[in-house]
C-alpha cells in the first residue's frame, strides 16, 4: 500500500522547547488517519509543518512517494494538501461563494465571474453531499454549515489530502454526526483525511489508523480495529486514565443558591430564561443538561451579573444578588469558570500571572494604596501554576501562548483559589483532552467534598452523568425536570432535553 503523505522523523524546535521530536506520520491513500495527543502535545505543530507554516529542523516529507520541501501554504495547496482550521477563516459579510474563491477568484477581463464560481461551488457541494447554499451569507449560516464551507474551500483548491483540526470541538452532537457522514463521503470519492483530535470516541467511530504523539514524541501508529479507548488513552497520556470519575455519595447541606421564577431576556429582547427555579446546596454538584441554545448562556450570565434579569430572584446564602455588579457577586462568594475562556475568562495579552489576579488585583496583598505588588502577584501565580499543573514556560508568558487545556487550568485555579461558596462551571472541559478532563472533574468533586455548591453546565451528557449529583434539565429556558443520575439513562435525558417528556415530568419540580 502506498502512502500519500509521509512525514519521517520530523523534529521542530522553538526557542526553549522541542515541539516535535522524531515524529513519523504515514497516511495511506483513502484512509481517515487520526493524529491523537493531549493539548500541547505537538499535533498542531506537526500539521503546521505539513502545511508549510513551519520548517522542520530535521526529517523528511514525502507526498506520493516524492520528497518535497513545503515552505509555504501555497506550496501545500499545490501539492493537494488542504486544511480545515478549527477557528474558521471566513469573512462574515461575504457569501459562501465569495469566501470560497477568496484568493483564487476566477475572472473575466478583471471582473469576477461570480455566477460561474457559484455554479462550481454548487456542483462540488452536491458531489460531496455538503448541502451548502452558494449564495448564503456566512453570518447567516450555522457553525456546522460554516465548517462545510471551509471543507469546500479546500476542495475548490483541488485538495486530495484534507487535514481536519479538531473539527468537532465547535459542533453540536447532531452536526458531529453529519460531519462524520461527510468525511466518509470524502473517502469514498478518493480523498485522504488526517483528523487531529483528542476525542477517543470519534477515533473509534471513523478512523482507520491512529498515530499518537505524547509531549512532542511520536509514540507510534496503531490500527483502530486492534485497539480500544483505554489503550489509546494510556498511550496518549502515558498512564492509566479513569473514565468514570470516582466519587463518594454527596452529602448536601444548606441551600447556597436559590433561584426563583427567574426571567432573562437575550440580546434580541426575547425571554431566553423564564420562570426558572433552581436550588443548589452546599456539598452537591448540580448539573444542567440541555441542548445548546436553551437559555444556558443567559442563565450563567445572569448568575454572574453580566446580564440584567427582568424578573425573579437569585439568592446566595440567603442574600439577594440579582442584578448586582459582577464584582459584588464575585465578592459575595461566587466563582465562575466561563463558557468562553477567550472572551470572558482571560485577557490573552496579559501574562498568565496577571490573569491569575484578574479579579483580585485590587485587594491586598496584590495591591496596596493603588500600587500593584508584582512580587506578590507572581508569587501567587507560581504557586497556582504549580498546584494546578499549568504547563507554561513561566508566569510571565502571555496567556495567548498557552494551549487551551492549560489556559483552562489557570482559570480553574484562579476561581477555586478564591474559595467561593458557589462555583459555576460552564462547559469547563470543552475542547480539552481526557487527561485535562479527568483533572478538572476531580477538582470539581474536590470542591463539592469541601462543602461548596457546584453548578455544572455542559452539553456533554457523559460529563453531566458522570460528575453531577443531581441533574436539572433545561428546555426553552425552563427547568423541565430534575433527575437522579443514578436512576436515569442517556436516552431519558435526551428525550427530556428535546422537550418531549415535558408534561409528565412536570414544569416545577423543586427538589
Amino acid at each position: 500500500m502506498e502512502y500519500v503523505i509521509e512525514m519521517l522523523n520530523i523534529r521542530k524546535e522553538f526557542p526553549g522547547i522541542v515541539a516535535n521530536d522524531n515524529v513519523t506520520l504515514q497516511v495511506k491513500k483513502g484512509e481517515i488517519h487520526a493524529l491523537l495527543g493531549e493539548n500541547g502535545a505537538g499535533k498542531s505543530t506537526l500539521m503546521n509543518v505539513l502545511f508549510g507554516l513551519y520548517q522542520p529542523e530535521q526529517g523528511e516529507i514525502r507526498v506520493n512517494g516524492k520528497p518535497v520541501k513545503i515552505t509555504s501554504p501555497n506550496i501545500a495547496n499545490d501539492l493537494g494538501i488542504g486544511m480545515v482550521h478549527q477557528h474558521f477563516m471566513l469573512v462574515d459579510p461575504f457569501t459562501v461563494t465569495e469566501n470560497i474563491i477568496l484568493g483564487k477568484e476566477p475572472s473575466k477581463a478583471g471582473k469576477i465571474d461570480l455566477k460561474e464560481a457559484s455554479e462550481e461551488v454548487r456542483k462540488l457541494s452536491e458531489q460531496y453531499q455538503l448541502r451548502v447554499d452558494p449564495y448564503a451569507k456566512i453570518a447567516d449560516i450555522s457553525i456546522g454549515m460554516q465548517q462545510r464551507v471551509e471543507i469546500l474551500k479546500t476542495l475548490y483548491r483541488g485538495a486530495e489530502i484534507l487535514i481536519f483540526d479538531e473539527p468537532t470541538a465547535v459542533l453540536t452532537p447532531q452536526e458531529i454526526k453529519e460531519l462524520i457522514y461527510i468525511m466518509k463521503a470524502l473517502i469514498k470519492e478518493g480523498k485522504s483525511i488526517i483528523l487531529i483530535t483528542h476525542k477517543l470516541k470519534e477515533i473509534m467511530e471513523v478512523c482507520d489508523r491512529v498515530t499518537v504523539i505524547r509531549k512532542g514524541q511520536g509514540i507510534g501508529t496503531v490500527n483502530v480495529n486492534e485497539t480500544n479507548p483505554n489503550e489509546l488513552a494510556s498511550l496518549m497520556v502515558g498512564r492509566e486514565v479513569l473514565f468514570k470519575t470516582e466519587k463518594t455519595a454527596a452529602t448536601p447541606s444548606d441551600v447556597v443558591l436559590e433561584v426563583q421564577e427567574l426571567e432573562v431576556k437575550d440580546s434580541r429582547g426575547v425571554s431566553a430564561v423564564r420562570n426558572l427555579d433552581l436550588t443548589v446546596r452546599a456539598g452537591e454538584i448540580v448539573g444542567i443538561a440541555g441542548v445548546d441554545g436553551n437559555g444556558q448562556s443567559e442563565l450563567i450570565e445572569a448568575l454572574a451579573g453580566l446580564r440584567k434579569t427582568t424578573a425573579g430572584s437569585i439568592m446566595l446564602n440567603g442574600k439577594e444578588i440579582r442584578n448586582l455588579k459582577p464584582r459584588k457577586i464575585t465578592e459575595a462568594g461566587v466563582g465562575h469558570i466561563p463558557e468562553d475562556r477567550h472572551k470572558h475568562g482571560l485577557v490573552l495579552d496579559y501574562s498568565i500571572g496577571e490573569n491569575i489576579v484578574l479579579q483580585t488585583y485590587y485587594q491586598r496583598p496584590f495591591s496596596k494604596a493603588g500600587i500593584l505588588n508584582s512580587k506578590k502577584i507572581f508569587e501567587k501565580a507560581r504557586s497556582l501554576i504549580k498546584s494546578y499543573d499549568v504547563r507554561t514556560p513561566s508566569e510571565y508568558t502571555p496567556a495567548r501562548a498557552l494551549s487551551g487545556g492549560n489556559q483552562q487550568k489557570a482559570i480553574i485555579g484562579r476561581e477555586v483559589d478564591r474559595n467561593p461558596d458557589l462555583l459555576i462551571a460552564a462547559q469547563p472541559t470543552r475542547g480539552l483532552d481526557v487527561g485535562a478532563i479527568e483533572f478538572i472533574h476531580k477538582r470539581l468533586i474536590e470542591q463539592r467534598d469541601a462543602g461548596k455548591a457546584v453548578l455544572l453546565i455542559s452539553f456533554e451528557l457523559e460529563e453531566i452523568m458522570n460528575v453531577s449529583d443531581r441533574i436539572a434539565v433545561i428546555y426553552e429556558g425552563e427547568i423541565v425536570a430534575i433527575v437522579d443520575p443514578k436512576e436515569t439513562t442517556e436516552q431519558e435525558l435526551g428525550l427530556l432535553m428535546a422537550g418531549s417528556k415535558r408534561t409528565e415530568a412536570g414544569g416545577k419540580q423543586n427538589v
Partner: protein
Amino acid sequence: MSKYLSKLTSPLIAVILGLVVGAIIMLVSGYDPVAGYGSMVNGIIGDSYYVGESVRTIIPYILAGLAVAFAFRTGLFNIGVEGQLIVGWLAAVWVGIAFDLPRIIHLPLAILAGAAAGALWAFIPGYLKAKFRVHEVIVSIMLNYTALYVTNYLIRNVMTDKLDKTERIADTASLRSPFFESITDFSRMHWGIVVAIICVIIMWFLLERTKTGFELKAVGFNQHASEYAGMSVNKNIILSMVISGAFAGLAGAMEGLGTFGYAAVKGGFTGMGFDGIAVALLGANTAIGVVLAALLFGGLKAGALNMPLETGIPSEIVDIVIALIIFFVASSYFIRWIAARFKKGVK
C-alpha cells in the same frame, strides 16, 4: 541589552534611509545635501542657543505623544489631542493672566488649569463612547474644530477687546527660566521640560505599576473579560480619555506658559496634536519610546528652521525631507516584516 538594541536598529536604518532619499531630492533640486544636513545638525545642536531651542520644541511633542500613546494603550484612539491642547493652552494662559498670586501657587495652578481643560475636553468623547457607544474618533475630531473656534472667540471677545492675542501672563505664572536662558544663550528653553519628564514617569508608573493602569489596559485588551472580572468598562473608558486629555492640555499649557507667554487667535491647527499621533506610533506607545520619538521629531523641526537661513534651501524641501524620514521610520514595521519573511524563506 541586545533586546533593546535590536528594537532600535530598524528605526535607525529608517532614519538613515530617509536622510539618503532626502539627500537625493536635494541633489535633484540643485542644492548641496552635505551643506543642507550640516546646517540641520547645526540647527539642532550647533551651539547652546540651538540646543535650548531644540529642547523647547521637544516639550510639547513629548506631552502630545504621551496623550495619544496613553489612549492607545487602553484601546482608544484619541485623535482630539489637538483640540485638547488648544483649550489647555488657553486655560493655562487665562489663569496666568487673571490671578494675582505668589509664584508657588500661581504657576502650579496655571499648569493644572491647562491639564484640567484638556481633560474636560477629552471627557466629552469618553463619556459619549461609554454611554452611547459613539466612536471617540468622530467626536474628538469634531471637538478639534470646536476648540479652535471657541478659543479664538474667547480670545477676541472675552479676554481682549477685538485683539488677536491676549496680554502676557503674570511673571508668577511663567515657566520661563533665567537659568536655562543664561546657559543657552537666551533661547526660549523653559521649565516645561521638567514637567514633560515628570509626565513621562507618571505615564509609565500609572500603566505599569498601579491597579488603575492594570484595569485600563485590561479594558483596552478585552472588554468582555474585564467586565467579567468586575471592572467597570465605562468608567475606565472615560478615565482613559480624561488622563489622555490632561497630557494634551499640559502640552498646550507648556506653550502658553513657557514658549509664548500668551494665547493668540489661530488661523488653523498647531499640528502638534496630530504630530503626537506619529510620535506615539513611532514610540510604540511606551513612555520611553515616546521620549525618543519626540527627540527625533522635535529635533528635525528645530533643525529644519536653520536650513533656509544657512544654505538657502527652501523650507518646502525641508518639509519633504522631514516627511521622508517620518515615512521611513513609520514603515520600519514594514521593513521588519519584510526582513522576517526573508529570513524565514532563506531557512
